[in-house]
């Protein structure tokens, strides 16, 4: 921390070429002649209305669902023997600020016995709590903490929702597209007054 009197927040660097901001991946529907995975039909039968969209691209299947159905879909995918996705390989988020529900939460599942992957996605708006997948796979715990840390998406029902990588007193969520890339960083972003208060705050923290 250097200069305690920050200059006025710099204007965001102008985009070089003005193109329409992307609003999400194309998620192309699968070609009609492609065999659907075996679990797809039972899933739509078991949870009607849960799967909003199905997509296939460069070999990856993607299911798009809604946050109300998130836990139910994941639980079904884990428990049904036709799916048997017993491992949560990855959970992350993508920020599409031009969209109303700006965040995609993306989970990548893996079925150890069938050696198959599937991606499941939901969309959530800013400040909207997403349901947690911790109850389905304990491994989602840290991954959701990282998403919370980097995007500021709160996970409802998460047992231990703290920042994972950034310091606890950090302001802002760096992985968002509108996070400034230059400037004094952590403090200017949301509450400029904190910039002055922070040194005192730091002094008060009992560091062992």
């Amino acid at each position, binding site marked *: 921390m250097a200069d305690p009197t920050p200059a006025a927040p710099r204007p965001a660097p102008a985009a070089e070429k003005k*193109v329409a901001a*992307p609003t999400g*991946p*194309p998620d*192309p529907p699968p070609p009609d002649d492609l065999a659907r995975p075996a679990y797809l039909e039972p899933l739509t039968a078991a949870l009607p209305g849960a799967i909003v969209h199905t997509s296939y*691209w*460069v*070999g*990856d299947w*993607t299911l798009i669902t809604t946050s109300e159905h998130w836990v139910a879909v994941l639980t079904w995918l884990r428990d049904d023997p036709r799916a048997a996705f*017993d*491992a*949560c*390989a*990855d959970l*992350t988020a*993508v*920020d599409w600020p031009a969209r109303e529900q700006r965040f995609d939460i*993306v989970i*990548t599942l*893996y079925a*150890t016995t069938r*050696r198959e*992957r599937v*991606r499941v996605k939901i969309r959530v708006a800013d400040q909207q709590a997403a349901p947690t997948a911790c109850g389905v*796979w*304990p*491994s989602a*715990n*840290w*991954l959701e903490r990282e998403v919370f840390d*980097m995007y500021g998406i709160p996970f409802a029902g998460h047992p231990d929702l703290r*920042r*994972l*990588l*950034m*310091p606890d007193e950090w302001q802002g969520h*760096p*992985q968002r597209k509108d*996070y400034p*890339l230059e400037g004094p960083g952590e403090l200017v972003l949301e509450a400029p007054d904190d910039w002055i208060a922070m040194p005192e705050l730091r002094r008060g923290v*009992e560091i*062992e």
Partner: protein
Amino acid sequence: MTTNRDTATSAFDTDELVINMGPQHPSTHGVLRLVLRLDGERVIDMDVVIGYLHRGVEKLTEQRDYTQIVLLTDRMDYVAAASNNLGYVETVEKLMSLEVPKRAQYIRTVLAELQRIASHLVWLGTHAMDIGAVTVFLYCLRERELVLDLFEEYCGARLTYNAMRVGGLPMDLSTGWEAKVRAFCDLLPGKIDDYETLLTNNRIWLERTKDVGVISGADATAIGLTGPALRASGVRRDVRKDEPYAAYKDFDFEVPLGTRGDTYDRYTVRLIEMRQSVRIVQQALDGMPDGPVMGKVPRLIKPPAGETYHAIESPKGELGYFIVSDGQSLSPYRLRVRPPSLCNLQALPQLARGHLVADVVALIGTIDIVLGEVDR
């Protein structure tokens, strides 16, 4: 962290001790911080604090073009940079549906397996040193040095190789390199025997590793363990076999499995993996095809809009890349790394609960983390 528990009920209550292990500690393998709650020396609970090495690699990639990102991947798992390179370039190739020449695939496989050997050697050395066998550490580093020499001869760097490009490799092998790799492959199994002489049947080693940090296959899968740590629990999951990438489907190798899922099994699994890696390298050298090492790649790497996830078997476990392209810019819209070290580290509290402080040290070693990859 505060340490005082004001809830001491009886005058003769022994205090629970809360200690910080790390971020500056000799055996946390970097800047890992563990907050241990101890009853005597027994671990009651543990909180893992990470992020001390967070450099925002995922954010940085959004400002770099696809070729420059190879360089960033080097800095994640810095003891296995070539594996990180491989995972990244393959994901971009998948996104762009690029064809990679067979020779490049073979050389990539050789590099990845040499990297696995080097990474496992570092792991074995540090793991043994954590348990007190300092000599093994120096033996392992001696052999790792030979691998680094091979890499240096191939790409000029010893740690951060930047050794792969989207669509192929930056350069072909130099003359005589293959012979040197062969010589190394002949040498290594004997050296592994040496390490085993010092450790495998050593009573102290057995007592320190057997039944320490036992985890069942189902639990290991659920908590997100991958790689050797998962296979030691008897789960047969190896991306090289399950979803063959590079040239792995051309080679014959075994995937070692453990039975009990304890620290000793994780040790034996990794040792066998090193021997299998030697086999793979030898087969790849035997069948090394001729031809170019760079495929037809557009001058500007600009993948079509879309997203994909691709995983490889890094020495630590499943290393996945999730890349989203918006089809407009020369940088990824979003690049997510699925770091095996991070996901494996998540199992540490579960493994360590109820064990002694000394076991925590052994367990940090046994899950094989690199903080550069945990924090990115």
